């Protein structure tokens, strides 16, 4: 493979030096050749260029001679029949086919890297199990839960806090997506996977909600970040309902996002942001910089 690579580079160099020869021929005598003996100077220049072409050509020949011809014709399997295609619109298929091969290759490569990373750092949310002895056992999963069970859990939140309204939709198969409105303060989209919280996006009261657009206000982008931290903090595979309930209790504490000063410095603002951090246990407000 390396030899092929050097051969290709050599060809590239050759092409560029040949290009220079034609460039020089095309532009003819130029101002920088001066007045005296301009013809001889020009000829010298051409000679020099041609020598480099010669040298490069030798390099190419050398590189090519070290290559082994491939054994037999390439086996293209059924894609070989693509060349016999007569309809015009399908003749371009080969290009897209090659592209999709490239993509599959990339996916393969990335998944290998991801696999290596995951086996090194045991993230507690993923189910990669490098331990072979445990493979056989059935794992408790918070992914596979019936929609009714999720619905009944969610409806308890709606009743638990009277200044928080919660509505459920299921745009992605059976997984629930929660739209939460917290007083007149903020709105949030919470995506579930079974009983596990997958993603949280917090936006302002007047903003549109969807799973992918961030808020245009700095404070809600910060709160989204902290909500992600909370979601990871409260996650527990053994007691998924408790995890969701604790998260929602924590989330409800954001109701005083703008009105409550920081517990440590006693001020409302720190670098133009209100206290966006809520302690996981005490639910007390802190600035990002003041948090314990």
């Amino acid at each position: 493979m390396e030899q092929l690579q050097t051969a290709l580079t050599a060809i590239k160099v050759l092409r560029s030096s040949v290009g220079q020869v034609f460039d020089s021929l095309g532009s003819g005598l130029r101002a920088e050749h001066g007045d005296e003996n301009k013809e001889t100077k020009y000829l010298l220049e051409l000679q020099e260029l041609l020598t480099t072409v010669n040298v490069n050509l030798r390099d190419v020949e050398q590189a090519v001679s070290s290559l082994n011809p491939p054994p037999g014709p390439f086996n293209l399997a059924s894609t070989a029949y693509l060349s016999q295609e007569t309809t015009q619109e399908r003749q371009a298929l080969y290009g897209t086919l090659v592209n999709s091969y490239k993509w599959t290759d990339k996916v393969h490569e990335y998944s290998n890297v991801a696999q290596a990373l995951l086996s090194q750092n045991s993230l507690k949310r993923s189910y990669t199990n490098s331990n072979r002895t445990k493979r056989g056992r059935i794992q408790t999963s918070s992914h596979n839960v019936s929609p009714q069970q999720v619905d009944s859990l969610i409806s308890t939140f709606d009743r638990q806090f009277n200044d928080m309204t919660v509505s459920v939709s299921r745009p992605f198969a059976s997984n629930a997506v929660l739209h939460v409105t917290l007083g007149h303060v903020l709105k949030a989209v919470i995506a579930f996977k079974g009983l596990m919280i997958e993603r949280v996006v917090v936006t302002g009261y007047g903003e549109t909600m969807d799973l992918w657009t961030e808020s245009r206000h700095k404070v809600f982008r910060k709160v989204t970040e902290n909500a992600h931290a909370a979601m990871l903090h409260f996650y527990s595979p053994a007691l998924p309902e408790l995890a969701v309930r604790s998260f929602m209790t924590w989330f409800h504490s954001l109701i005083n996002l703008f009105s409550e000063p920081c517990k440590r410095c006693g001020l409302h603002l720190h670098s133009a942001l209100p206290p966006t951090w809520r302690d996981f246990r005490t639910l007390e407000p802190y600035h990002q910089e003041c948090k314990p």
Partner: protein
Amino acid sequence: MGVTVLQQFPMTENRTGPQTIEFLTKRIVALGAVQTGQFLVDCETYMSVPQLGVQKTVHVLHNSEQPASVFAVLESGSKVVPLIADGLFDLLMLKMTSIYTSKKQTKIESKGPRFEIGDFCVKLGSVTMSQNFKGVLVEVEYRPCVVPGSAWDLMREFLQGFIGSVVPNQAPQYLQNRMNDIYQPMDTIQQYLEHFGQYRKTTGVI
């Protein structure tokens, strides 16, 4: 649209209007604000002709923050009727000169630089009534929050940190009556109208 507070900045003997604006600009930039263009709020007042009986007043305002809208406030006795229309309303008022006449010499506007700092939007307006300088009016908007009641303490802290002890601890009367309502663009206009009224009544600068 977030909660907005207007604050008059008192003029001192040794500074002119533009100097005051420059002074405040330096302060807000030192706090880390970035200038994002200019702003303009203007107000023209029309009076109904005496033949129509009880005199009615129409204030027509524009705010560069809502460039496609025209705001109108009709005052008739103790009643106040606010209206938000599109740009054609200006032309309509021109057609009504036989009923409503404009008092040209009371045309008043506040304009100046506009700054953004974090989620705050700060506007330093110099108020002029028919080319005469009347004073400096500072507008601070906290865009993420829509309820004056929950944003006031935070905004007071910002305002006091920025323009000092001129800022009272109590919210402006206009906001106090609407502490738990959702803030609308019309509320900003009403506050401007109140302040413009004060500037019109006084002869010198404030």
